């Protein structure tokens, strides 16, 4: 036992790194080979996101703000895919914007992955439009409250917003009944709530998908200012399972494409990593108490 404690006390952190690599790689390989994912039971916050989008009638404009970059794409890209998937299936008019400089590229990737691949009948500029990035953070939000076109005067392709059919009837940000943000930090979901939702007097509803770090900070706004919340990859997996089950053809047993299972596939590595963390905390505490007891014995 004492030898085990000695090993624990002097454990090189590279062994921990190796253990983490194995606990993450194992499930990735297993899920990659078998294609099996873990079942998800959606929590009320994920259900709320689904319901808010489902409640909109076809043709309703929705504002989708991609406020993240590829660094947090592991958590947020599956959410973006599922959110756009549901909006496209519902026939909503999607207006994409970004308050992060790398957001427009992520919007283009999502459009390519979901809309161009599975909804080729949707027309750019009519059913969806990418307005690109605008610098200014909260100030852009404030300008959108009074004049949307001043905040985003042209699309990413350089077309004046006045000529874009998808923006018909949009003068101010509160002309959108629903705002969907995918947020990795500042500016993000919190700023949207503080500067737009609280100023709109309840005209706009908002749902968000955010990183795990942001999630605890957004719970205080749910369900009054924030109508739905997808927290980290777990929230993404719950929402993804909801969207997939609702969009799956009733009379078909065709497999769901892998791109619509990304979040659920990533729950496997998350399980491995969480179990390892718990094991490491327990082992660390065993070493700590053994060391403390030996010190007490030595002094007495």
């Amino acid at each position: 036992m004492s030898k085990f404690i000695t090993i624990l006390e002097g454990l090189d952190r590279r062994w921990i790194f190796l253990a983490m690599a194995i606990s993450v790689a194992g499930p990735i390989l297993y899920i990659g080979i078998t294609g099996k994912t873990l079942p998800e039971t959606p929590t009320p916050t994920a259900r709320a996101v689904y319901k808010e989008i489902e409640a909109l009638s076809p043709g309703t404009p929705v504002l989708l703000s991609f406020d993240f970059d590829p660094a947090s794409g592991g958590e947020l890209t599956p959410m973006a895919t599922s959110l756009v998937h549901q909006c496209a299936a519902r026939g909503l008019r999607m207006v994409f914007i970004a308050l992060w400089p790398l957001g427009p590229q992520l919007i283009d990737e999502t459009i390519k992955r979901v809309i161009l691949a599975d909804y080729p009948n949707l027309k750019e500029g009519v059913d969806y439009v990418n307005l690109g990035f605008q610098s200014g953070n909260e100030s852009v939000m404030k300008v959108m409250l009074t004049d949307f076109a001043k905040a985003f005067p042209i699309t990413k392709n350089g077309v004046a917003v006045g000529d874009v059919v998808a923006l018909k009837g949009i003068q101010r940000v509160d002309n959108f009944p629903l705002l969907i943000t995918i947020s990795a930090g500042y500016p993000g979901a919190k700023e949207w709530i503080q500067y737009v939702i609280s100023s709109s007097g309840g005209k706009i509803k908002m749902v968000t998908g955010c990183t795990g770090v942001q999630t605890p900070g957004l719970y205080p706004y749910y369900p009054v200012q924030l109508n739905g919340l997808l927290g980290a990859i777990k929230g993404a997996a719950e929402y993804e399972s909801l969207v997939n089950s609702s969009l799956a053809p009733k009379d078909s047993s065709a497999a769901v494409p892998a791109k619509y299972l990304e979040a659920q596939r990533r729950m496997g590595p998350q399980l491995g990593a969480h179990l390892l963390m718990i094991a490491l905390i327990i082992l660390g505490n065993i070493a700590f108490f053994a060391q403390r007891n030996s010190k007490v014995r030595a002094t007495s």
Partner: protein
Amino acid sequence: MAEGSPRIMKRLVPMWIAIIAGFVMLLSAFFPITESLGETVGEIFNVVAAIAFVLGAGSLAKVNLAKISRRDQGWGYAAITLICFAITLVVGLGKIGVPQSTQFPLLGWSGEKDAEGSIFGWIYEFALVPITSTMFALLAFYVASAAFRAFRAKNLEAILLLSTAFIVLLGRTFAGVVLTGWLPDWASGLRLENLSVYIMQVFNTAGNRAIIIGIALGVTATSLRILLGVDRSWMGSGD
């Protein structure tokens, strides 16, 4: 006059810009008649924010060039940063390798800088995305190492923190369902996945709301000090 001018430009002008812009934004939130003024200030801010990118680029070049010229420790990294920065800037601004836009075929440089096949698009897809994703993924390794060394049940508070962490860690994965899924419906509140949600919605929300209210009060006080010209530390002085 010679001594007074820098003081006016460096201290008084920025202070009055901040005071006027701050009051305009404040009033525009309460009086609809001043809404357009607030909008104008917002637009000015957006333009300044765009110019800040140029300032940031200049600052990046200045800091790294100074490191290289002094041969500071790790100056090679500074050189790599500058080379990468220069390459990205040139291929982005020059739209090198960008295919012509199908929408505006007669206009030169009308293609998108990050279009498929462009060098900028290649840098984004094959350099930026893997690098940033890798940096983020490394967190898992460091968090695991830190958990092993620092997460100790030293006292009651630490034990409570540890228990909460275990519930949330298990409840946010399928392990929670496996471990406590057998509990009957009348005790479903004790299932790990439900306990995890309960912790986030009740304890976390209560604590976070207290923090948010405290921050809001602090922001109000600091904003008032800036608006009234009492706090000038944002100008980089020790006032």
